[in-house]
């Protein structure tokens, strides 16, 4: 059971959050310009990394804010937490 440091509320139990999958996938500004393959790339393709992964979480039973998390999926350690719109920490690549 993770302990997640919500950037707005502080450390809370995982049960207050919901996971939103991979982070930093930007919705295309002009979807109509995209080919089926390009759209499918955005829509369906997700990395499934063993190791350091950037992902989105929502403090759904708290402040309702979405934010980003850097997590090592091999040991579940959360390495960093940052707000939406902020650049991912450079030390994790």
């Amino acid at each position, binding site marked *: 059971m993770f302990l997640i440091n919500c950037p707005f509320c502080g450390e809370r139990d995982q049960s207050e959050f919901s996971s939103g999958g991979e982070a930093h996938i930007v919705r*295309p500004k002009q979807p109509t310009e995209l080919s089926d393959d390009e*759209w499918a790339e955005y829509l369906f393709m997700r990395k499934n990394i063993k190791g350091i992964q950037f992902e989105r979480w*929502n403090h759904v039973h708290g402040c309702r804010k*979405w934010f980003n998390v850097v997590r090592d999926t091999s040991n*579940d350690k959360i390495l960093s937490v940052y707000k939406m719109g902020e650049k991912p920490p450079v030390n994790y690549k």
Partner: protein
Amino acid sequence: MPNYRIHKTEYIDETKRVSFKYDGKTYFGYEGDTLASALLANGIHLVGRSFKYHRPRGIVSCGAEEPNAICQIGSKKDLTEPNVRATELELYEGLEASSQNCWPNVKFDIGGINNFISPLIPAGFYYKTFMWPKSFWKKVYEPLIRLSAGLGKSPTGPDPDIYDHKYVHYDVLVIGGGVSGIIAAKMAAKNNLKTLLVDDKKILGGSTIYQNNESIKIDDKLSSEWLKNEIQEIKKLSNLTIKTRTSIAAYHGYNFLLAKENLTDHLPEEKKKNKIRQRLWKIRAKKVIIATGSIERPLVFNNNDRPGILLSNSINKYLDYYGVTCGENIILFTNNDSAYETSISLHKKGIKNIIVDLRKSASSELIKQAESLGIKIYFNHVVTNTFGYRKINSLEIMKLSEDGNTTIGNKIILSCDCLGMSGGWTPMVHMHTQSGGKLDFRDEDQVFLPKENSEDQISVGSCNGDFDLENIIDKTVNKINKFLEIDNQDYQDTNIICSKENDKRNIWLLPNKIPLGKTKCFIDFQNDSTAKDIKLALKEGFRSIEHVKRYTTTGMATDQGKLSNMHALGIIADTAGVKMGTLGTTTFRPPFTPLTFGTLVGRNVGKFFEVVRKTSMHEWHVENNAEFENVGQWKRPWYYPKNGENMHDAVQRESKSARDSAGILDASTLGKIDIQGTDASEFLNRVYTNAWSKLAIGKCRYGLMLNEDGMVYDDGVTTRISENHYLMTTTTGGAANVLSKLEDYLQTEWPELDVYLTSVTDHYSTASICGPNSKKILNKLFPNLDLSDENFPHMSFKEDKLKNINCRIMRISFTGELSYEINIESKYGHSLWKMCIEAGKEFNLTPYGTETMHLLRAEKGFIIVGQDTDGTMTPSDLQMDWIVSKKKYDFIGKRSLYRSDTVREDRKQLVGLLTDDPKEVLEEGAQIVSDVKSKPIDMLGHVTSSYFSPNLNKSIALAVVRSGKTMKGQKLIIPMENKNINVTVSDTIFLDKENKRLNA
């Protein structure tokens, strides 16, 4: 009656005699006893029959690892508890226990015949035998297996006990109150860290607390005396919490642990009443110190399972802690020094004993002590067989060959009434591995040890493979100082004298002259798997330890192989010729010892089992006989049976009356999201498929929301309340997810939009009145409101007061009838409803539930998201192309609507179905085909909604059918179990295609 209680100890209160019943007979023990120690004091070893062969079995251990002494407690149908370990159950006045898995009784058990046919029931017997014929499975095999499976009996009544949950946070959690745990807890707490120390026993001290050997001393005192002082000291520490009778069940990530505290299991029945029985502690600790100790290993030899054969150290504990001797003529069979402590202790209490030692020789202090006491030791000998049916009475030993692979020389028969075995020690690494820790293998004494890889968890003491007292204390102190980053000097000058073990010899499967196939060398006592079974599994090609475990069921009983796993691994490694360390282990899964369901659910039983949401009108529905349907967490009226109506009749009546005169629905559960901000219109444009910018203030519009993959996600009516203020409604079940999804887009994709979302579902109650007389009812409620079609047309919104309370009134329709929805602040919901009912009396205003609502919607071909859609339906599949804006540049899901897959013409599409026999009602979910003769039958789709329409006087259905849009008028077949139903594809709208009724 024999009395094996041979001396007084401070842990047994001989002034407090306790009577208890075992298998119907009354016995006596004392306060401080466990059921096991009390039975042993009465000379009872035989406590059960083994699982598969029904062999007589006795108490083996004195703790959580016990495989045999598991019993049924109590006989009341709601309080009886199966599979309780007698070694852990504290004795109390009036305790009733009985043995399990035997019939008619433990001394004479009919299943014992399995022992003689055992060559016929090898490993994998069930897998191999009950394969065929297929028809035998249901009628013969399954009932047979069910009869012979399982150990105890489950209670059959609801559990009347109270259970509790508690959340706690600590700087440091110490698991285990033995010598290393006590030292760790003291060091942490003295350093101002908020510390919790838990131990599963009644008192702290582990196995050191009854240690009384003169050769093991700390600061010139017996180690037990020294430890008692330490315990007194830590009890004074203010920031240390000590929880005894508390065992850790699970160690999850981020140092989140579950512990079970036993509060009343040791009390007589009258004292248990109205008290919390067990408490589940949910612990978050910054740092966790694991000091769970180790358990003694049995040895694997022929007939090593007879009653009277125990672990050597358990014999020691029964003697020195409980004052009970397990026999009067004891043999100890060992491969290490610890049995010598037992031997010396027995000797000092006058119990005759001899030692059989696998090792060629040994030379520690303990061994010298035993030798000087004149205790007979057979070095380099092995037990090759034991005798005695209900209890051991003698055994056979032989000399070991040089390499230890065979026996040599003559058999020696030794008589005894008890055998202690000691195969070395297994560190309890369960907690470490449950937390995600890895293990290392130490060849020297064949143990798996925690591999340190974490800054917030550490193992100390014998669970870390440190076995002698000097090692334990020195290493614990050093490790804790480092781990907690402190500099504690308390143990700097502690002077420890202890015996050091110099010689080791480990043989997993002991040699025997008899071929293995004819021996019974048990590995897992509880599941009756033997060394032969393991070897058979290997011979049959199983290699992975996980497979061998499942095939032979080794380690899969309620003790989870605490005594057996290492031997299984060792024998696999030896047989396969690989190094044991490279095999890995099976997974250590929580819980460490079984938990009651009561503990897990705590107070969340009965009406607290699940959160229930009720509308303000709920009480009225209850008073008016509503049957309820669960929609998400909501309780929604399903239908309101009158005068003993069944569901069908009630729904027919409600539906008819809603269209003929007036019906009223509690629509409070629909999700309501308040949307405000200067970009609210733009936001709606982006989330719905249709256009919103031109919606006038005071108007309402139906919207369809898609997922980005183009599939219908939710629907509902949204009202423009003012320039920058909308009220969106969602489906009842989808409300929370829609809000999350909208927040997601707002916060992450479109942060530039000035839009604020607030869930107001619970803030308003909604009564929806429909039917040709609804306008008249509204007029009675709101006499000053102009209800004319010109002033208040369909899809518009007004505000008015009911008495002096503000109401939002929307003229929108769920059902295709002229309808009004009245929204009022929730606290007035009940009053609103009653006023509506009152006003509607003269018009036969009929309350209707969700079933009628679905029927009315189906008549109109209005979809129910989640019933007629399933996450694979596009608007076009639903024949709702009209709601998808062609002009809008973008909205959620737009691009997906012309992916190659979504434009396929042979997608499943929503159609209407009319049965050839208008009385025949289809089953929802039924498959649809065009031809029943061709094989395999081509499945075209399925029925999504189906009702008998009282307004049309015929059966109607909605269905999704491959290429359905082009099939109007075509005949299809619904094959049912005993007939085929003929149907014709129709339009989805069955009633009032021209929508005249909306303005009736």
